């Protein structure tokens, strides 16, 4: 806040006048003794003052600054800021996604590796099953280890004729049964 000094005129004894926009060095001019004030006035009137003091007053608007902005400009400003913010957010999101994507790609490759390992294990197990089901292997085990022999003709008995659901069930189990 600017401080201005102004010596008042004769009316107030040369003292700064405390006004609305002024600040007096003397808080209360009435508090100065009258004799002093008269002597000073007399001295000024009687002879040429030794030094003229000017007291200039600078008007300073010290009230709150309220700028008048047009609403359209303000709205455009808000829009621009919002747009910029969105673009910035998108940029940030893009950058985040990009690096997150790379990070996920590493994870994905890792998972793919595990998946391939699982698939390879699955394939190896299928291969092992197929190998174990080799008719020649089963035949040799049956004959050599278990001592089984081919059934003779009269040891094979046919089932009685089935009908309805039983036939369907059997055919479902053995789809390539001869007609």
């Amino acid at each position, binding site marked *: 806040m600017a401080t201005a000094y102004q010596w008042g005129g004769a009316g107030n004894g040369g003292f700064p006048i405390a006004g609305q926009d002024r600040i007096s060095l003397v808080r209360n001019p009435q508090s100065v003794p009258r004799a002093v004030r008269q002597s000073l006035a007399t001295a000024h009137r009687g002879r040429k003052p030794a030094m003229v003091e000017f007291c200039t007053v600078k008007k300073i608007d010290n009230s709150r600054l309220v700028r008048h902005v047009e609403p359209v400009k303000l709205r455009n400003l808000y829009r621009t800021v919002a747009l910029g913010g969105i673009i910035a957010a998108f940029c940030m999101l893009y950058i985040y996604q990009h690096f997150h994507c790379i990070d996920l790609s590493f994870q994905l490759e890792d998972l793919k590796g595990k998946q391939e390992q699982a698939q390879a294990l699955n394939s190896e197990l*299928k291969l092992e099953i197929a*190998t174990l089901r*080799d*008719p*020649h292997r089963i035949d040799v085990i049956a004959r050599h280890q278990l001592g089984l*022999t081919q059934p003779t003709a009269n040891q094979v*008995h046919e089932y009685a004729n089935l009908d309805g659901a039983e036939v369907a069930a059997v055919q479902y189990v053995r789809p390539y*049964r001869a007609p």
Partner: protein
Amino acid sequence: MEQEKVHARLLVLAGVALFWMTAIFGRVAYLQLFCHSEYLARAGRQQRRTIEITPRRGAIYDRNMHPLAMSVPVQSAFAVPSEVKDRPLAVRLLSGVLGMPAEEIREKLDSGSTFVWIKRKLPPAMTEATTSLNLKGIYLLGENQRYYPKRELGSHVLGFVDVDEKGLGGIEHEYDYLIRGTGEKIVVMADAKQRWFDGSEAQRDRGVDVVLTLDEKIQYIAERELAAAIEKTHAPAGTVIVQDPNSGAILAMANWPKFNPNAAVDVPTEMRKNRAISDIYEPGSTFKLVTLAAAFDQNLIRAEEVFNCENGAVTVAGHLIHDHKKYGMLTVADILANSSDVGAIKIALRLGSPKFYDYIRAFGFGSPTGIDLPGESRGLLRRLEHWGSYSIASVSMGQEVGVTPLQMITAVSAVANGGLLYKPHVVQEMRRGNHALPLEGPSVIAEPKRVIRPETAATLRRLMEGVILHGTGKIARLDGWTAGGKTGTAQKIDPATGRYSRTNVIASFSGFAPINNPVVTILVSIDSPAGYPHDGATVAAPVFKRIAEQVLPYLDVSRDVPLSPQLMQAAYRTKNETDDASLDDLSPIDFSAQPDAPEEAAKSEQTITNLPKSPEVLMAADEGGDVVVPDFTGKTMREVTEGCMRLGLDPVLVGSRVAVQQTPGAGAKVRRGTKVTVEFDDTLARPGKSR
């Protein structure tokens, strides 16, 4: 003054900034607009790797979806030489781990290529060891290794692949473009540490799975019995084919010698040959089926018609032809049963060359069958205009004509199924994942072609049954099922003399079972069996019997004739002998209880051939038949139909007017629902027309 200085500095700063920005953006614009493609390519080379790997081949299954060939992921080691810093160390370590000469690895690394295979398709132990080395510039890449888990089983049908998984034989070759799949590439991005990320699998496309008509059990039975016969006869080669006569589907195709497709590269080419479709041989007496089929179809002969077989010798176009036995008067049925060459020649002469040739062509001889396997031969059949005066006689008994085993069994199947010639095929279905694909190319199953009338086929089936009941194929008689067939013993050409060899023959037997509703057709061909006798009746017929007696119960085919007491005793005796047999003997039944030699067969001929005619014996041996088949001879179609319906039988009527033949025969005990084929003939009503 001071303010002017400030302004000047600001201007200088702004100018520098503007220049800097202009330079930056100018450079960016230059790089983006003028050098874009160059730097994009350079970045791609640095960051992106497109690696082509072997596509994963589809699996091959049998008709019950049992895998016969499948691919398993394995790892292959490769190097990027520019990334290998310490080469001597890498060479030394890799040499120790992979078991390769160091010099070989060094040469690969020094080759100057950007990508070199170090070793492909590593075993799991080597893969782990290579991974643990963690060498810079040495990588592992997934590939696929083809395995055939059943080893030799069906190897000639399956084929094999090379190290690049390219099909080189059989189904692997025929459908390589489908099984192999399209090119498989992996595109990966690499970071500064050469870690891969963002791998692309968009171009992966696994091959098509192929489901075959083969049945691994039947295939094994065929291969085992063929191997047993080869071992017994010391023959160098042989073939067995089992076919479904009602569709042309090949259920088994066994060849000897066989090979392991897992190590096919080391196998001689001769062993990898699929003889069933590529070997041409003179069929011999089995070709008499074609001769008789043509004559029957043209109504030129009847089954009961008698021919004079000239006591075993006939002269045609100045050539004297001797029969293998001296036959006198024989009916047509006996001509086929006893395989009389003279009788067949006389029938062919009555038929004439043009019609005979047409039937031969109609049965598919002289042209490939179109089976979906590579390397099929068309056989040898001279054009009619090139036939000599003697040719009709030769061809009628199976000489001067070359056939493949597949052609022969296709023709026999046509007789078995009632006269329809089906295209033989081994592919049943193509699958991608769980979805069936439409068949394409050679796997498309064409409509069957009728080559003979159903009546002709029925007559031939009956005559072929006679071959097994009282003809040359008695050894092939099945225990519990009716069957028909024809033996064949074709002399091979001796390369040294250019004449027919007396010792080298091809013994064959073609037959089907059961008679009424054939389920399987089986062809057995043994090339050059050692020892004597080496005819088809002795060598090939027992193989047919063994295979049929295992395949028919496996297919749940009900017995249509009771077990014969002799055979039951033989089976009982066999069981005891088998219990004491050596474990090394893998043959299922010791058929030593049955006569192999013709002399022994002749001794037992009387008892065996009389069995179906004695209902008392049949009753004693009956195992569950609940309907006695009546005698339909002389009855009309209505009477036959009514009789069958009353007894719960399923009549199959062939011909018209009066019943003359039936199968099963009168007195046979069968189950309800059994098909009874009754053949009618109108010649009995008009006796004057018969010859």
